[in-house]
C-alpha cells in the first residue's frame, strides 16, 4: 500500500495546459476510509476497506473494479449521500457531511422524473438551486445538443431508450457546471460508437471547464482513455489494488486507442483484475474496446 500512496502525488506526464495543478490543494482527499453497511437483518457488510486516495483539482480519475466491490458506495460517500464508517474525507479541504452544490453526480441509473420532459429533467438541479433561468435554459439546451437529444427536449423519459435516458441524466449532472463531477458508469447503456463520442465530448468539457472528474466504469479501455490515473479496486471489501498512471498526451483522440502505451496499460489492468481472484474481468461494459 505504501508504494501506491507514494504514486498518488502526480501523474507521470503533466500536459502543458494543466501545469498549475501541482500548486492547488486536492479537490478530494480520502484517507483510510472504511464503510460497513448494516443490513436490515442487522448483518454487517464490509463494503470498503482502507481507501486512501487524493484527487487533485482538474484531475480526471477513473475507477475500475469487479461488480459489487463498492465503487458506487465510494462515489456516494464522496457525494455526501452516505456516511462513512471510519477514516477521513475532505472536499476542497472541508469535511463532508452532506451533499455539496459544487459536486455534480451522475448515477448508475438515469433516475429521470417521468412527469417532467427531458428538458425539465435536465433543468431540475438548476431549478432546485435557484440559478437564473435564462442561463440555465441555454446551458441545458447546449448540453442536450451535445448528447444528441436536441430533438427530444420535449419528450418524456418514458418515450426514450435506456441510452437516451442516461444521456439526459449526464446533461442533468452538468447543468449547474459543478467544479467536481462524480460519474457512476455513465456510459454503460450506450452503444460503442455513441460511447466513444461521449468520451471525446466529456474529455473536451473537462479540458475546457477545468473540472475535477471521477468516473466509474466497467470498461478498462474507457478508464485508460479518459483517466489521468486509473484506480483499480479489489473484490469486496473494496480496497485500492493499484493506482495506474496514464501518461498518454492530451487531448486523446481515437488514434490514442491504437497507441502502444494505451494497449499495454489496458492489458496490464486487465491482467491485474484477473489476478485479484475469482473476480470477473471488468470489461463487460463493452465500450471503447
Amino acid at each position, binding site marked *: 500500500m505504501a508504494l501506491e500512496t507514494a504514486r498518488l502525488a502526480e501523474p507521470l506526464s503533466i500536459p502543458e495546459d494543466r501545469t498549475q495543478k501541482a500548486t492547488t490543494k486536492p479537490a478530494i482527499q480520502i484517507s483510510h476510509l472504511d464503510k460497513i453497511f448494516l443490513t436490515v437483518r442487522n448483518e454487517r457488510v464490509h463494503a470498503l476497506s482502507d481507501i486512501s486516495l487524493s484527487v487533485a483539482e482538474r484531475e480526471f480519475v477513473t475507477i475500475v473494479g469487479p461488480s459489487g466491490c463498492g465503487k458506487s458506495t465510494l462515489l*456516494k460517500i464522496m*457525494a455526501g*449521500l452516505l456516511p462513512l464508517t471510519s477514516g477521513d474525507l475532505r472536499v476542497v479541504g472541508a469535511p463532508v457531511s*452532506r*451533499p*455539496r*452544490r459544487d*459536486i455534480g*453526480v451522475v*448515477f448508475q*441509473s438515469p*433516475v429521470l*422524473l*417521468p*412527469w417532467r420532459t427531458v428538458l425539465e429533467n435536465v433543468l*431540475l*438541479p438548476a*431549478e*432546485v*438551486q435557484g440559478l437564473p433561468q435564462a442561463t440555465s435554459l441555454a446551458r441545458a439546451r447546449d448540453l442536450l445538443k451535445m448528447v444528441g437529444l436536441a430533438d427530444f427536449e420535449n419528450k*418524456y423519459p*418514458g418515450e426514450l431508450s435506456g441510452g437516451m435516458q442516461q444521456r439526459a441524466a449526464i446533461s442533468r449532472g452538468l447543468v*449547474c457546471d459543478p467544479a467536481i463531477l462524480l460519474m457512476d458508469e455513465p456510459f454503460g447503456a450506450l452503444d460503442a460508437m455513441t460511447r466513444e463520442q461521449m468520451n471525446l465530448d466529456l474529455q473536451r468539457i473537462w479540458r475546457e471547464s477545468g473540472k475535477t472528474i471521477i468516473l466509474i466504469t466497467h470498461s478498462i479501455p474507457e478508464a485508460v482513455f479518459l483517466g489521468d490515473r486509473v484506480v483499480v479496486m479489489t473484490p469486496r471489501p473494496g480496497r485500492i489494488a493499484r493506482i495506474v498512471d496514464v501518461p498518454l498526451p492530451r487531448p486523446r483522440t481515437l488514434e490514442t486507442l491504437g497507441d502502444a502505451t494505451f494497449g499495454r496499460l489496458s492489458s496490464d489492468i486487465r491482467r491485474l483484475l484477473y489476478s485479484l481472484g475469482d473476480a470477473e474481468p471488468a470489461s463487460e461494459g463493452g465500450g471503447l474496446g
Partner: protein
Amino acid sequence: MTVEAHSAPVFREDTPRPVTGLRLLLRTRPELVLAPTLLVVLLLVWQYGVIWLDVPAYILPPPSDVAVALWRGLDAGIFSRGGYWLHTGVTLSEVLLGFVIGSTAGLVLGTIISQVRIIEATFSVYLIAIQSLPKIALAPIIVLWFGFGLTSKVVIICLLTFFPLLVNSMAGFRAVEPERIELMRAIGANGWQMFWKVRLPSAMPYIFAGLDMAAVFAVVGAVVGEFVGAQRGLGVLILSMNASMDTAGTFSVFIILSLIGVLLHGVLKIISRRVLFWSGTGQNTHSTGT
C-alpha cells in the same frame, strides 16, 4: 430445438395498412364497440326472458317497465316529491360534500403523517386495524347523533372516504423510489422542494386509486345513510317504492344511483389522465384495497 424451428409458425406482422371507420375503432378501442353491444344483448335477453318465463313484474320487471318508470320519474316537476330530481339533488349533494371533505381530510392527514417516519409507523398499526372495520355499521349511530338531515349522511360519507385516502396516500409516500430521493438530496434540494417536486407527484397514482375507491364508497354511504333515516334522497325513494312493490321504480332509481357513481368515476378518470399521463402502469395497479 431444431424440431421446433421446423414446425413453429412464423410470427410476423404484415406491413400495417391504415384502417378507417369501424375497423379502426375495433382495432384501437374495441371496448367502445363491444361494451354497448353486450349491453344491448343482455337487455334483450332480460326483456324476452322475463316475458317468456312469465316472471311477475314485482319480482323482476322487464327493462321496458324500468325505462317507463325512469321516464315518469324524470318527467315530474323538479320540486315534485314524487319525481326524481329533488331526491337526486339531495343525494348528489351529500355524495359530493362528503366525498370532497372526507377524501381531502384523509389526503391531508395521510400526507402529514407520512412526512415523519416514526409517526407514520406508530399510526400504521391502528390504521390497518381501522381500515378493515365495517365502518358502514356505524351509520345508525351517526344518524342518531346528527339527525335525519344532510349532516348525518355527509358525516357517514366522510367516514367512508377518509380511510381510502389516508391509507393510500401513506402507501404512496412510502413507495417513493429511494433513488429519486437520493437524486434530490444530491442536487441539494430542501424538504419543501423534495415534497413538491418528487414525493407528491410520485404518490399521485396511489392517491388517485384512493379517490376511485372513495367515490364508490361515497354513493354507498349516501344510500345506506338514507336507508337508516332521512326525509329526502334516492335511498328514501327506494325504501318507499319497495314498500309499495314498485320494483320497476326501484330499478330506475338504482340506474340514477349508478349514473352518479359513473359520473364521479368519469370525472376522476379525466383528471387522472391529465395528472398521471406519465404513469404507464395505470392507476389501478396501485390500489391497496380497503
